[in-house]
């Protein structure tokens, strides 16, 4: 087995929500999830909006203080004390390339800021060289260095964001929906770049997205989340060929395929109703209110992730 760069154990992230004047109730954004990511591996994390996938990424990097659970990075427990040092090796790329770059800073300063924070250069010349090399990595010209973020298109801004994440030479990057704000023709450019950078630098990704096709293309393994819990986790080809959890099945059948004959021939499983409010979670399995196979047992007990062989884990009583 390959060594794990990241291990998440029983991570819980609750947010207090004011329910009355003196009363708060917990919103269970992430509820007891565990997974690991190998060195140089890409784990895809898919789910609908509000399922907690972004929160997972942010909790790992301690942008939020987790309610419970542990995160180990390279065998070392991540705590408040050592997170600043560890952020030299863990970085994040954000979804919105428009709001995640400071409009008052030049590209050179945006990419150089992590270098400044972690004191990664001896003199101005070295800083400049490092920045230019990073820009070359992500396909930006040296002449772009003195420009401001607003002068760039969405795809180029996302490249700046990626260069900033790469500046500290990290081993692990959380990519939070990095391509969903981009046009289709630009998406492919950025996906290819992520793959190239991984081949070159050996960096591991937690790739968060809602587009199953994109996630399948880029990931080695995929985890499917629903209402703060992981429902299924498996090798990406395996998950695509033989999905087991009813939620994964319906999610996959709901994705429109850009092929008229295929998409019209298949049977779509349309889920009834909406995702329940995370403040009023159903008892037992959180998916049971929309599940075709739900039984009494699903309401009584919450299924744990079970190994079905080949590293395919499923949390379901009936499948």
């Amino acid at each position, binding site marked *: 087995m390959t060594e794990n760069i990241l291990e998440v154990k029983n991570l819980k992230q609750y947010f207090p929500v004011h329910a009355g004047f003196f009363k708060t109730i917990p919103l269970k954004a992430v509820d007891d999830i565990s997974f690991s990511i190998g060195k140089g591996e890409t784990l895809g994390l898919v789910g*609908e*909006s509000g399922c907690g996938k972004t929160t997972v990424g942010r909790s790992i990097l301690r942008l939020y203080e987790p309610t419970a659970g542990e995160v180990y990075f390279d065998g070392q427990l991540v705590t408040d004390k050592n997170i600043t040092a560890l952020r030299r090796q863990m970085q994040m790329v954000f979804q919105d390339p428009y709001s995640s770059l400071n409009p008052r800073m030049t590209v050179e300063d945006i990419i150089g800021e992590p270098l400044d924070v972690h004191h990664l250069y001896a003199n101005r010349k070295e800083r400049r060289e490092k920045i230019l090399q990073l820009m070359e990595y992500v396909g930006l010209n040296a002449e772009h260095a003195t420009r401001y973020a607003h002068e760039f298109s969405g795809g180029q801004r996302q490249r700046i964001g990626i260069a900033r994440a790469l500046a500290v030479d990290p081993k692990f990057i959380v990519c939070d929906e990095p391509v969903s704000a981009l*046009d289709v*023709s630009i998406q492919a450019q950025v*996906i*290819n770049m992520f793959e190239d950078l991984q081949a070159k630098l050996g960096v591991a990704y937690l790739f968060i997205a809602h587009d199953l096709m994109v996630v*399948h293309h880029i990931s080695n393994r995929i985890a499917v989340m629903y209402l703060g819990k992981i429902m299924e986790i498996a090798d990406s080809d395996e998950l695509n060929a033989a999905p087991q959890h009813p939620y994964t099945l319906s999610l996959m059948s709901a994705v429109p395929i*850009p092929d008229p004959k295929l998409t019209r021939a298949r049977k779509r499983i*349309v889920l009834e109703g909406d995702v329940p409010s995370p403040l009023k979670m159903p008892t037992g399995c959180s998916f049971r209110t929309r599940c075709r196979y739900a039984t009494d047992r699903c309401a009584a007990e919450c299924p744990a992730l079970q190994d079905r062989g080949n590293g395919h884990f499923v949390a379901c009583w009936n499948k």
Partner: protein
Amino acid sequence: MSEHLLSVQDLHTSFFTDSGEVQAVNGVSFNLDPGEILGIVGESGSGKSVTAYSIMQILADTGRIVHGHVLYKGQDLTKWSKKQMRSFRGKCCSIIFQDPMTSLNPVFTVGSQLEEAIRLHTDKRGAAVKARAIEMLDLVGMNEPEKRIRQYPHELSGGMRQRVMIAMALACEPDILIADEPTTALDVTIQAQILELMQDLQKKMGMAVILVTHDLGVIADMCDNIVVMYGGRICERGTANEIFYNPRHEYTKGLLRSIPNIANMKQRLVPIAGTPINMLNMPKGCAFCARCDAAMKVCLDELPEEMTINENHKASCWMNVKAMVENGEGRADQ
């Protein structure tokens, strides 16, 4: 000539901004027949939404139709007065917008907004209006419609709000429904619900639908005919099968190559190089030629005219002329 339900002829729409005239739609023509689902696909800035807004004449203040005609049942809408257009909207043609969060008024109940549309466009009054509102909510699959009409938009989820928008659009039984990115803001499982609902209602009510989207998957699923737009012009049009299995414009080919699908899962994606076109600075020739791998000298200088590939398929790309010349079928003037 048989009369089309809607016929857009050589439409030019421009926005007059401080930095100059932006020709957002640049000579777009297409026809829509009753009961047809037409897909308009393109990237952001390709002019697909502006085309839809031009039909409805709901452009921003800086925008104006500078040339061309929009014929509805043979009558030219561009010559209609504001009052006439008001009666056209809602009754003959409705639109659903991308963002159901911002297109409903937050300070009125769902019911009052729905009833307003019914009262404005039909002669129903009093209890009949409310009954129709409840009937419409029921039709779009909202549970407990009697309770829903007293709720405010913020009490509903995104999918529910989009259902309310659809109910509002269809309340007056229009002949044409324009759906501008109706599912882009929704999650996949909710998107599946809404697409299914739109297909159902289209069959039930028989209206024609113009579906504007950037999602090729949604287009493949829903549309009979497809128009592909780039840089304010139509680059290719045809039936769904022709566009997906026999693309004849380099942009369409590139678009289909660049999306991940089951067949290319293990391969590297082939992206379209470069960035989308700057509409303030349109080239003389084909708008796509700066990003096109197959671009020739003629592409830079001359706008390709629309060529007929077969009866169901037309494309505006010089590559097709090149192929014809190579096959010895060249036209006399080439």
